[in-house]
């Protein structure tokens, strides 16, 4: 990993005082929708999917070169997940996920900035049962998105974000039951919040 990317992230985490002026923090709330976690066939097709869930995101970034920043973003969401077969749904409980994404951002248009990164996504089921019988899962995550900012206070911006991320889902229990490969899962989130101004 390039030093220009890693070093600022570590300093950001450490809260280096000398870099305070260049550091930007934000928090947002929103909702996440995800594609199917799993497709299975027992007599007929079964799909498992997370419901649209509320999420919170916090993050920070710091300048690495004019116009470009590196940062960390953590998200947490909690919502139900269900199985569906022949148009009948079964509640499978609550699923919490947390992600940590190390990313880069840059200018896109006047108030718009792009963002892209990679990290990890953790699944924490409320109950170790079913597809999570052997526990949760941690998966590699890649994501991208755009942030829109509009000044609302002297040092604060209103921030609206659109995110897309992608990972391959499986669990230890699915592996144990001879499921092959992994399931492509896409997630899209929309969120709004406040960011300490970049100005």
């Amino acid at each position, binding site marked *: 990993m390039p030093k220009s990317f890693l070093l600022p992230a570590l300093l950001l985490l450490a809260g280096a005082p000398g870099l305070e002026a260049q550091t930007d923090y934000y928090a947002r709330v929103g909702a996440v929708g995800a594609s199917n976690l799993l497709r299975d*066939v027992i*007599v007929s097709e*079964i799909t498992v999917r997370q419901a649209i869930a509320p999420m919170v995101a916090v993050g920070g970034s710091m300048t690495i070169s004019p116009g470009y920043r590196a940062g960390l973003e953590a998200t947490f969401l909690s919502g139900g997940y269900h*199985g569906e077969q022949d148009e009948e749904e*079964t509640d499978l409980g609550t699923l919490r996920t947390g992600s940590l994404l190390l990313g880069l951002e840059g200018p896109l248009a006047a108030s718009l900035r792009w963002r892209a990164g990679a990290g990890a996504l953790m699944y924490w089921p409320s109950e170790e049962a079913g597809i999570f019988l052997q526990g949760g899962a941690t998966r590699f995550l890649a994501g991208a998105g755009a942030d829109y900012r509009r000044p609302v206070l002297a040092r604060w911006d209103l921030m609206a974000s659109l995110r897309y991320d992608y990972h391959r889902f499986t669990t230890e*229990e699915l592996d144990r039951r001879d499921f092959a490969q992994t399931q*492509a899962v896409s997630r899209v989130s929309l969120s709004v919040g406040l960011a300490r101004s970049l100005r």
Partner: protein
Amino acid sequence: MSLRPHTTIAFAALAAVACGDIASPVRDDLYEWRLIVPAAVGTDTVHFHWEQEDLPVRVWVAGDEVEALPSLMQRAIDTWESVYLYREFQAELVSDSNTAHVIVRGVPAPSKAVRSVRLPSALAPECDGATDLDVSPDLRELTLPIRIFINPRATPDTPGLGDCLALTSIHELGHALGIFEHSPNQTDIMFADPQVDLPSRFDRGTAEALYHLPPTIEAVGR
């Protein structure tokens, strides 16, 4: 520009991993679980499973007959629940026998009741078991409760009694969740005289499959 064969294969494999969906296993490890009964012409089959609205199945266990029976039945519930990926079957122990879907006793099975079907099993020297089903003559209704009898044939300190009661509890609950016939395989917990402690691959496959086919009989009475 041309790619070397191994490079092409590597790219193809990468593309397959990146784009392919998860592939579910082939589930053909199962045995006949439906109750086969005489009919006016030939035989008929009875297929039952608990509906989602019945879950969790309420199981009442007599605690004063065999001390370990409540904990053994809880273990049996946990064992069968863990077979399922999509919460097809769930059960819980309850304290009121009047509302129970399944009643478990630690005594010998009484003489056969009128219209009931008995599934006797676990004929080990240490213990035996039986599950009684009250099936209507037209094979359309299963009157609840299902009654399970787990009978210790030996004194409590007899070696092997605990294991026998444990596997018999799992076996009889297997009947109560819908496996109405015995497996022909000695390595399955649903074999008539089970030799193993836990559900096998065939038991799991059978238990999964039966919850994804429409039942021919409906539970009534509770």
